[in-house]
């Protein structure tokens, strides 16, 4: 009984009762679609995000330069201002940095890194969190204890601190060659580690409720494998809060990556993400080279803003209390 009240982070709704899946999905789809159409901010955010994602995805084909190819950088072209300035030069629409790196290309490639790291870290956290949460809730006992205690420990250290420690330890103990190759995976891991607990707790609560239900007991009796029960019956019931949390965490993950890179423990300067670009540009705040820092900062804010707007809308749209 007590387990019912267990989700302390619950601003998300309690799991809905199991209804037949197809109907439920259909209904939600239509509701969602309707809600989406009536929210101009959500439409705006979705278009913006789509634009960013597409330009980032096709960056190699639309940018004038590969900013990660050292041989392509030409110091002669350093510090060219944006094109609308008298000294601007084609094709450097947003100007170049102090190494002659095209800012627009760097931003698109940087967005690509930011999006990939954000997305991948959410996926890793989801995969880990969902499986551990299911296992903990379904089996209970010492497994549950171990997993949840581990979660407690992780949650008792601030998110940003864990991420910094992981990246710092990893980068300081790896040889230079590997460090460059592994920079992105390390960041993904560092951001995923402290964030899986939230998913695990949500799923666990739901699993604990479900496993006592008759249909699960029945399924067990007819020897349906436990992972099938979990996958087909328990998981769908907590997808709504998970989806909202994952969307909002996507924004948070992008922010975290940028923050780590800004602090100098994230992506290295020769494969800059948006945070790295801002860190480098920050040194030139006073030398009139404002475009090096302002454009990446704007792009970063736009990405996070659109993700958060979608997440916010999703939460309201899926929350029955607020309808």
């Amino acid at each position, binding site marked *: 009984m007590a387990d019912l*009240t267990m989700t302390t982070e619950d601003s998300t709704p309690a799991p809905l009762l199991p209804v037949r899946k197809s109907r439920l999905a259909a209904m939600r789809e239509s509701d969602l679609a309707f809600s989406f159409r009536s929210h101009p901010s959500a439409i705006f955010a979705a278009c913006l995000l789509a634009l960013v994602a597409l330009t980032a995805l096709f960056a190699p084909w639309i940018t004038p330069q590969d900013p990660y190819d050292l041989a392509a950088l030409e110091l002669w072209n350093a510090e060219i201002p944006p094109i609308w300035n008298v000294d601007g030069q084609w094709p450097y629409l947003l100007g170049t940095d102090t190494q002659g790196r095209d800012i627009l290309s760097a931003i698109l490639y940087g967005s690509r890194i930011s999006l990939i790291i954000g997305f991948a870290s959410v996926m890793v956290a989801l995969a880990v969190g969902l499986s551990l949460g299911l296992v903990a809730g379904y089996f209970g006992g010492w497994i549950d204890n171990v997993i949840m205690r581990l979660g407690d420990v992780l949650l008792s250290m*601030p998110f940003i601190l864990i991420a910094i420690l992981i990246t710092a*330890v990893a980068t300081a103990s790896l040889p230079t060659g590997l460090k460059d190759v592994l920079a992105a995976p390390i960041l993904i891991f560092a951001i995923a580690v402290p964030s899986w607990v939230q998913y695990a707790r949500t799923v666990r609560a739901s699993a604990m409720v479900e496993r006592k239900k008759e249909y699960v007991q029945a399924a067990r009796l007819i020897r349906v494998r436990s992972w099938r029960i979990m996958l087909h019956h328990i998981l769908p019931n907590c997808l709504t809060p998970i989806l909202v949390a994952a969307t909002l965490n996507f924004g948070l993950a992008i922010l975290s990556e940028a923050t780590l890179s800004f*602090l100098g423990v994230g992506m290295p300067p020769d494969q800059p993400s948006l945070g790295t670009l801002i860190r480098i540009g920050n040194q030139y*705040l006073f030398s009139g080279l404002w475009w090096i820092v302002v454009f990446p900062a704007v792009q970063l804010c736009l990405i996070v803003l659109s993700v958060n707007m979608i997440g916010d809308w999703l939460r309201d749209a899926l929350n029955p209390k607020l309808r």
Partner: protein
Amino acid sequence: MLAFLIKRGANAVFVMLAVALLAFTIFRFFGDPVEMMVNEQATQEDRAELRERLGLNDGFVTQYTRFVTNAVQGDFGISYRNQQDVMVLIGERFPATFELVLVATVISLVVGIPLGVITAVHRNSRLANALQLGSIVGVSLPSFVVGIMLILAFSVSLGWLPAFGRGETVDIGWWSTGLLTPSGRAALVLPAISLSTFQITLVMRLVRAEMLEVLRTDYVKFARARGVPVGRVTWVHALRNCLMPVITLTGMQIGNLIAFALVTETVFQWPGMGLLFIQAVTFVDIPVMAAYLMLVSFIFVALNTVVDVTYAWVDPRLRDDAAKAGGANG
């Protein structure tokens, strides 16, 4: 109640031991402490002798026990970089971080609560929608970008406020405060604002959600029916009922703010614990990193435990649940 207290306390101790294990593992296995301590001319024998003297040849459990015993006594050893007692280093920086977090918290309450009330009361009005949108912008702006923009605007262009440091400080016992001097207060403004942006939106959203609930209750409806002025109902009767969650959130967020202050401190070169930590990270100064991790986690765990215990004391029904749920999250 006693059983609950013991349970909760044991949980906190367990968590701290686990954090200590992590800190110790980093301390011991990440980089070779001996290599960091000796100078370049040291011979192989020097190194071996130092290794023995530091007890690095003992078993893992022995070393861990020693680490925990020392940590409990506040002994984290000597900083590799400053060659100074780590706890003294951190202790000197603590007031700076604490004051920054305190002021940021006050700002977030003073700004966040009224905004939350307004958006709840005038739900769906143009103002409320604008504020709601503003709050999304608030959580979306990275705090270092906010900091850089504030410096650009108020220090560089307008020249109103200092861009770095703490200004003049005054020592009261071991505590050095910047709150008592004009330059100290001026220096606090920009960092505190930049640290509080995220927190303001949190408070605002929480107050809004709580107010929406409270405004629907019979209690408020009765008050209105009795002819109490609307303003008074909202700002006194209704608001009073949402303060408890706000205070809880604020209390639990303090640990997060202390950790997140490290970003603000980096941007503003604020001489607090966070800046010390970031410098320790770049210089691989492991003792400082380990001590900072332990200290911040301790504050975190302590605050959460206090919040849980207070809640359980107020509402006995929670005792059983809270004990099961383990540490509340941040």
